[in-house]
Structure formats: structure tokens, C-alpha cells
């Protein structure tokens, strides 16, 4: 099973997003130990963007299936078998996001600013990935990215 460069890049960004979210949540807990709602808010923000990512990915996979033989195609046969579910996830993601954000913010009283910080995690991860690509290009070897 081989993964395309695009899939490998997405995997790295997913991993970096989780790391950035974890670091932000741990920092919030360390700086404000008496206010766990802030750390929970960061985790909630990461959860929101993860929900959005899953919805978008399911929709894209339903239209363009992952390349045959790739890690994704092997690990998610459901995406091939049930493209309708992918479309449902894609088109209902905004409603799911709105309800989730409302529950987190108004019911669980997560810190809203911390949630904004959590949503920033994939942008930070994408920046890290672009720096990684630029460094690999400047050093002239692409093998580090594989």
C-alpha cells in the first residue's frame, strides 16, 4: 500500500494539528490552572475544525475516491461502499458545527477565545508544513518529506 504525496501531506497536517492543539490546551491549563474551561475551549475548537475536516474529506472522497492502493482507500472502504454517507456528512457539516459550537459555548461554558485559538490549529499546522516544504526545497532533497 502506497500513499500519494497529497495523502502524506494531509497526514502530516492532521498530526501537526493535533500536536498544536494539545500544546495550546496544555499551555492554557498551565497558565490558568484554576480555569479549565479555557483548556477545554481549545480542545473544543480543535474538535470543531476536526468535524469540519471530516465532513469536507468525506464529501471530497465521495466525489473523487482516493487513488487505488493508497492507504486511504484501504483504510476506509466505507467511503467507497457508501458515498451517500459522505455527501450527507458534507452537506450537514455546517448544521453540526453550529449545534456543537452552541452546546460547547452556551451549555458547557467553554471559553470562546480559547475556542478561537483551537480553530487556529490547522492554520498553524499548514504553516508548519509550508515551512517544512520550503526547507526541504532549499536543501534540495524531497526525501525528508516522504
Amino acid at each position, binding site marked *: 500500500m502506497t500513499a500519494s504525496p497529497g495523502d502524506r501531506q494531509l497526514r502530516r497536517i492532521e498530526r501537526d494539528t493535533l500536536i498544536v492543539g494539545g500544546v495550546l490546551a496544555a499551555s492554557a491549563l498551565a497558565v490558568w490552572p484554576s480555569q479549565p474551561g479555557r483548556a477545554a475551549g481549545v480542545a473544543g475548537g480543535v474538535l470543531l475544525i476536526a468535524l469540519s475536516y471530516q465532513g469536507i474529506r468525506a464529501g471530497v472522497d465521495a466525489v473523487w475516491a482516493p487513488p487505488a492502493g493508497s492507504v486511504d482507500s484501504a483504510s476506509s472502504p466505507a467511503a467507497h461502499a457508501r458515498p451517500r454517507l459522505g455527501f450527507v456528512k458534507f452537506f450537514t457539516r455546517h448544521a453540526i458545527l453550529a449545534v456543537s459550537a452552541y452546546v460547547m459555548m452556551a451549555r458547557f461554558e467553554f471559553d470562546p477565545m480559547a475556542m478561537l485559538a483551537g480553530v*487556529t490549529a490547522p492554520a498553524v499546522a499548514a504553516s508548519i508544513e509550508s515551512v517544512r516544504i520550503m526547507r526541504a526545497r532549499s536543501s534540495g532533497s524531497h526525501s525528508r518529506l516522504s
Partner: protein
Amino acid sequence: MSTRSILSAFLMLLVAGLVSPVYAQDAAGATGTALVQWSIITAGFALAIAALGGALGQGRAVASATEAIARNPGAAGEIRGALILGLVLIESLVIYVLLISLILFFLKPFGG
């Protein structure tokens, strides 16, 4: 219908929507209540504008990706990855505005 008439109709609708809450206020002019009303109106418009911008951006991204895959099917894997990343980054901007609008709707930082 020309673009100018559509724009005029939109502007008239906008003005009508903005003016009616102003007339609905008390004569005493409760500043706090007005601020809350305006913050909710602002949140609604911000969400609408963010949805519009996000939809336009995502539409362009999907159109470009479709065209690129049609031209070069061999690069579908890489294009798909870049498309998903681009869509998520566009979506994150919309989620920012969604969160800020929810703050204004439900947490009411300006009182009320």
C-alpha cells in the same frame, strides 16, 4: 434585470432592515439595549458575509480542482490533498465568524 437594479434592491432591503430596529427603540434611548440590538444585527450580517465569501472561495477551489484533474488525471491524488487542505482553511475562517456570531448571539458581551 440589470446589475444596477439588483444592487439597488439589495441596498433598499439593507436600509429597511437596518432602520426598523432603530425606530423600534424606546424614546428614552436605552444605550445598552441599542448596543445589544446592533451587535446581533452585526453578527447576522457578519455570518452572512462570511458564508458568502466562504462559498465563493470554496466554489472556485472545487472548480479549479475539477479542471486540473480533468486535464491531468495522474495528479488527482496531489490535487485532492491540496483541495481538502484549501477547503479546510477556508472553512476555518467561516468557523471563526460563526464563533464570534455565537458569542454575540448567546453570551451577549455587551449586556442584555
